C-alpha cells in the first residue's frame, strides 16, 4: 500500500516537475512567474487529443504533435506578448499580470472551443497495473515516471553540458552582460519558451492519460508554481525536487488523512519551508548590492 502510494506520488510529482522546470527556466531568465504555463500544458493535451480522436493518428504521433503544439504556443506567448512588454520597458510585474490574462484567455477560449466536458484519450495500455510481489503498480504511473525522468535528465544535460545551456546560464546571471557578449537574448528567450512549452505539453498529455482532458486542467500550473517556489525560484533542480515533494505529500495526505485537507497541508508545508528557508530549498538568496 505504502509503496504503491509512493510510486503514485512520485509519478504525480514527475508531471508537476515537467511544468515546474519550465517555470524555473523562465523565471531564471526573465524574473517572472509565467502563470500561463499550466494552460500551455492543457492546450498540448487538447492538441494531442484532437489528433487521436478526430484524425485517428496513433497515440505516439498525436502525443508528439501535442508536445510540438505546446512548444509553439509557448513560443508565441513570448513572441507576441512578453517580448512586447519587455520592449515597453515595463516592470517585470506586468509580465506576470499579462501571463494571468493569457491564462484566462486560454482557459475560457478552450471552454468555448471544446466545451467544458471531460474527455478521455483512448486506452493505450493493454493492462492497467502490474504486480511485483504483493505490490500493484499502475503501468501508466511507471510510464509517466519514465518519460518525465528521461525528459528532465535530457534537460539537465542540455543546461549543464551544451553551449546553448551555457548561454542560458549566462543570461540568467546577467542579461545585459550576456547581450554584450554577443548572445542573442531574444532568440534564447524564444528557444527557452519553446523548450518549456514542450515539457509542459508532455505533462499535459501524461496528465490527460492519467485523468481526463478538460479546460481547467491547466490549474495544475498552480501546483507547479508552488513546486518551483518551494525549490527556489529560478532553480531547475530545486523545482524538480519541490515537485516530487509536493506530489508525494499530496498523495500521502489524500491516502492517509483526507483529500479535503490535501491543499491545506501542502500550503502549510510551503509556508513553513519558506519561513525556514526564505529563498526555497535550493534558491540563491540574492543580496541586492547597495
Amino acid at each position: 500500500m505504502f509503496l504503491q502510494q509512493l510510486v503514485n506520488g512520485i509519478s504525480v510529482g514527475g508531471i508537476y516537475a515537467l511544468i515546474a522546470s519550465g517555470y524555473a527556466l523562465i523565471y531564471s531568465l526573465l524574473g517572472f512567474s509565467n502563470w500561463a504555463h499550466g494552460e500551455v500544458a492543457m492546450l498540448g493535451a487538447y492538441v494531442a487529443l484532437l489528433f487521436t480522436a478526430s484524425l485517428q493518428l496513433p497515440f505516439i504521433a498525436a502525443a508528439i504533435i501535442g508536445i510540438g503544439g505546446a512548444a509553439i504556443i509557448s513560443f508565441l506567448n513570448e513572441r507576441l506578448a512578453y517580448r512586447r512588454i519587455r520592449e515597453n520597458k515595463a516592470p517585470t510585474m506586468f509580465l506576470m499580470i499579462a501571463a494571468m490574462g493569457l491564462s484566462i484567455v486560454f482557459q475560457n477560449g478552450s471552454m468555448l472551443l471544446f466545451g467544458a466536458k471531460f474527455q478521455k484519450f483512448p486506452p493505450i495500455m493493454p493492462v492497467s497495473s502490474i504486480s511485483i510481489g504483493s505490490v500493484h503498480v499502475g503501468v501508466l504511473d511507471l510510464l509517466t515516471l519514465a518519460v518525465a525522468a528521461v525528459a528532465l535528465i535530457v534537460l539537465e544535460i542540455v543546461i549543464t553540458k551544451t553551449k546553448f545551456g551555457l548561454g542560458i546560464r549566462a543570461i540568467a546571471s546577467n542579461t545585459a552582460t550576456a547581450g554584450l557578449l554577443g548572445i542573442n537574448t531574444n532568440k534564447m528567450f524564444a528557444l527557452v519558451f519553446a523548450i518549456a512549452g514542450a515539457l509542459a505539453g508532455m505533462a499535459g498529455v501524461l496528465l490527460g492519460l492519467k485523468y481526463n482532458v478538460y479546460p481547467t486542467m491547466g490549474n495544475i500550473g498552480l501546483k507547479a508554481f508552488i513546486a518551483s517556489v518551494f525549490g527556489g525560484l529560478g532553480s531547475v533542480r530545486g523545482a524538480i525536487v519541490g515537485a516530487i515533494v509536493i506530489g508525494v505529500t499530496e498523495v500521502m495526505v489524500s491516502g492517509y488523512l483526507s483529500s479535503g485537507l490535501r491543499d491545506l497541508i501542502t500550503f502549510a508545508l510551503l509556508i513553513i519551508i519558506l519561513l525556514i528557508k526564505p529563498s526555497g530549498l535550493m534558491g540563491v538568496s540574492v543580496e541586492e548590492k547597495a
Partner: protein
Amino acid sequence: MFSDYTQGIMIIACINMIAVLGISVLTGFTRLFSFGNAGFMSIGAYTSALLTAKMGMPFIPAILVGILFAGIAAYLLGSLTLKLKGDYFLITTLGFGEMVRVLFNYIPITGGARGLSGIPKYTTLPIAVICLVLAVIIAWTLIHSKYGRNFTAIREQEIAAESVGIDITRSKKMAFVFSAMFAGWAGALYAHNLMFLSPMMFNLAKSAELTITVVIGGLGSLTGSIFGSLVVTLLPEIFRSLANYRMFLYGLAVVLIIILRPAGLFGYREFSIRKSIAFVKAAPGTITALLKGKSSKDKMEARK
C-alpha cells in the same frame, strides 16, 4: 429611483471598489502583491455573517468585527512572511487564501461546502455608497499622509527608503493590514448583500481579479483603481448577451491593456476635475492631433 437590477449592480460595484482600493494601496502604492485578499474577504464575510445570522448582532458592529478579524489575520500572517521577497511573499499570501478557503469548507459552523444561508439582507444601496465614500476618504487620507509617502518610497526604491529612515517592515505591514481590512469590509457587505456564502466565492480567481483591476486602472492611482473597478464590474453587464465570451474577452482585454497601455488607464496620476477642464479646453487641438494618428501618450501630456 433605480430598478432592482441596477441597484444590485451598483451595490456590487461599490463592494468591489472597496476591496480594490485595499489592493490599490498595497500593490499600486507599496508594490506588494497579495493573492490572498479573497481570503481576507471571506474572513470578513463569514465573521460578520455568523454574528448577524446566528447571534443577532446589529450590522455595523458586525462589520467592524469582520474588519478587525481580517486585520488581525493579516497582521499575524504579515509578521511571519513580510520578510520574504517578491514572489516568495506572493505565494504565502496565495497559500493563505487557499488555506482559509479549505478551512471554511471543512469546519461545521460555516456550513462547509454547502454554504451558509439565512444571512439578513442588510446591505442596501445607500449603505454601500456610504461605505464606499468613507473608504475613499480613508484611503485618500492615508496615501496623502506620511504613511502613504513611506509606501511610495518602498515602491520606488526599498534600499533608499531605508536609508532615509523609513521602517520598511512596519510600513509594509501597515499596507498589508490595511488592504486586508478593506477586503474584510467588502466581504462583510458582500455577505449581507447576497445573503448566502460559500467558500468557492473567495477563490484564487477572485484575488487575482482584484490585482488585475488595479493594474488595469493604473498603478499608483486611487482614481484609476476606482475607474478600473467600474470597468471590470460593468463591462460584463453591458455585454451580457456575450455571456459565454465574457471571461475570454476579459482576459484578452487584460493582455491588450498591458501591452498597449503599460501604465494602465491612469498610471501614477489622479483624475482631477481641474485638469480635465484644461483638457477639454485644449481638446480641439488634441482631437486634430488624434485624428492625425498621434498616440495616446500625447493625450496624457495634453491633460497634464
